[in-house]
């Protein structure tokens, strides 16, 4: 009898205490193939919840979200999480593949010495466009004026979408006005708001994801969005043999670079698994997936040989040194600035 109970217990400890790694991640940021390969390799389960905005992720954590081992915040959110003492230091000894990272992406301003964060992938917020149409219309493709100047917008009425994200849209407007993307001067913000309100009547929608499909179908000719999404729109249009091509470029006024990092939450119950996951993702072959399948830029040098040439050669995905000069990262806002920004955003939407 006792033996049976013991056996049952052992069985249970095998089956019940299954190793699970909880990941709070961006939508569509780790391909299913990669996740499945990791699960097979570590003989554990990877469970993911998703967010579509850093602000959303931070707010949900503040509102009591717990139970995650790993998060994938952008640089500015990493800084906030570090100052908030929400993160667990990374143990470099458990990451033998750390050396694969390109030096340019180590030691970022938000986490010098990479004590808490390991870069995973990066994207640029830029303009995607229907190259065939814009050529017909004789419009430039390398400037934010395309979505802000009524002179151009007159030819594009109802064919433009912008991101439904207060920070990204304001950054684009600030850059076009000649201010830095992370500017916090209230007067500049007001000027940016007025610029946006002037252009808004010409826009079709504020959209965070549908522009991929709409660009590929041809409903939309210009979209403000992320480089990885534009990549997908271009692939989709190609695959569907559309009579036009989708292209994307970094505007000459500059753009926002978002470097997304793996960080371990301080309450993680499985830091061992979290480290194994990060190191797994650092190996060249696995790291290449996020570029090959999702079209994100890659801070991993060992991944480059595994990345398809048409992705690796795309300067809007892998900006060269000169382009990198024009890119800047956002910084998190103070409470009073957040309040003002939210009001400006409300005005933008309602007016």
């Amino acid at each position, binding site marked *: 009898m006792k033996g049976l109970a013991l056996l049952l217990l052992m069985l249970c400890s095998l089956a019940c205490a299954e190793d699970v790694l909880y990941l709070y991640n961006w939508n569509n940021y780790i391909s299913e193939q990669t996740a499945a390969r990791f699960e097979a390799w570590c003989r554990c389960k990877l469970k993911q*919840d*998703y967010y579509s905005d850093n602000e959303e992720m931070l707010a949900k954590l503040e509102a009591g979200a*717990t139970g*995650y081992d790993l998060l994938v915040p952008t640089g500015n959110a990493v800084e906030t999480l570090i100052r908030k003492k929400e993160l667990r230091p990374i143990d470099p000894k458990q990451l033998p593949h750390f050396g694969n990272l390109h030096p340019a992406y180590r030691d970022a301003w938000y986490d010098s010495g990479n004590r808490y964060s390991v870069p995973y992938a990066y994207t640029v917020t830029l303009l995607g466009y229907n190259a065939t149409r814009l050529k017909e219309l004789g419009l430039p493709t390398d400037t934010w004026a395309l979505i802000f100047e009524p002179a151009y917008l007159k030819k594009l009425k109802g064919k433009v979408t912008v991101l439904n994200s207060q920070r990204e849209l304001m950054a684009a407007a600030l850059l076009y006005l000649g201010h830095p993307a992370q500017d916090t001067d209230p007067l500049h913000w007001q000027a940016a708001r007025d610029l946006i309100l002037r252009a808004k009547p010409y826009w079709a929608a504020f959209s965070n994801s549908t522009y991929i499909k709409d660009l590929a179908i041809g409903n939309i000719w210009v979209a403000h969005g992320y480089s990885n999404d534009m990549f997908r729109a271009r692939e989709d249009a190609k695959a569907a043999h559309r009579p036009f091509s989708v292209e994307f470029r970094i505007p000459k006024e500059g753009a926002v670079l978002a470097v997304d990092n793996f960080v371990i939450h301080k309450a993680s119950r499985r830091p061992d698994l979290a480290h194994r996951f990060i190191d797994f993702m650092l190996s060249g072959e696995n790291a290449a997936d996020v570029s090959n399948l999702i079209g994100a830029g890659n801070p991993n040098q060992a991944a480059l040989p595994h990345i398809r040439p048409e992705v690796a050669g795309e300067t809007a995905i892998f900006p060269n040194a000169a382009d990198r000069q024009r890119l800047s990262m956002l910084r998190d806002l103070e409470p009073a600035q957040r309040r003002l920004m939210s009001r400006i955003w409300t005005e933008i939407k309602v007016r």
Partner: protein
Amino acid sequence: MKRGFLLWCAALATYAFLYLPLAVVVLFSFNDSELNAAWVGFTTHWYSRLLADEVLLQAAGNSLLIALVSSSIATVLGTMAGIAMHRWRLRLLPFLVLTPVAMPEILLGVSLLLFFRQVLDLTLGLFSILVAHITFSIGFVAIIVRARLAGMDESIFEAARDLGASPWRTFTRITLPLILPGIVAGYLMAFTLSIDDFVITFFVAGVGMSTLPLQIYSMIKVAVTPEINAISTLLMGLTLTLIGLASRFAPELWRSKS
């Protein structure tokens, strides 16, 4: 005669307005097309995909557990409140019981979020959802129980007391059996409210804990797929069965709602 005809037409239009959208949902749950736009062919594919969806099943399990526990506790507390409000002239209790029923749900959700995080420093999850659901269900149970008591003849209780029954005996032997249908109706009501609630749960659930409505919400937000139609159809079938049972055992359920 003509007027009666017009009335019928207008009423029929309203009934159609009520049922057509749901019929569309049910119909397209059997449609063999990912796009949900036009009828292609019959399939039960979406149902089998649903039953293989671990996350969804887990959420459904959570919903069921929360509904069972919260409606049980709410029924006990709500019955007490209903009896108290019927029996004595109270000031505070009616206010406490009726206000959460009348308030927009978002206010209760937000104030509970503040309370749990700022005062109790609680990790949101099962407990916070349970407490929130009990809070908004008590009022509904109390109202139904009180309505049942109000419709009863006081003289029975007096007769019992005159015959020497103790208050406790009067309660267990007379009051309780008489208001039992009301309590059952209240329980079912609380159960339905809990398993259905979206707004309040949305604020007090945190992220790790999911219920079926929360899961449906994120499915609708992320992508509109026929799986949502399938789960909707299943849920409608379930509530229909529950209502059928309820109206058989306690016809008060939907009469006292009005």
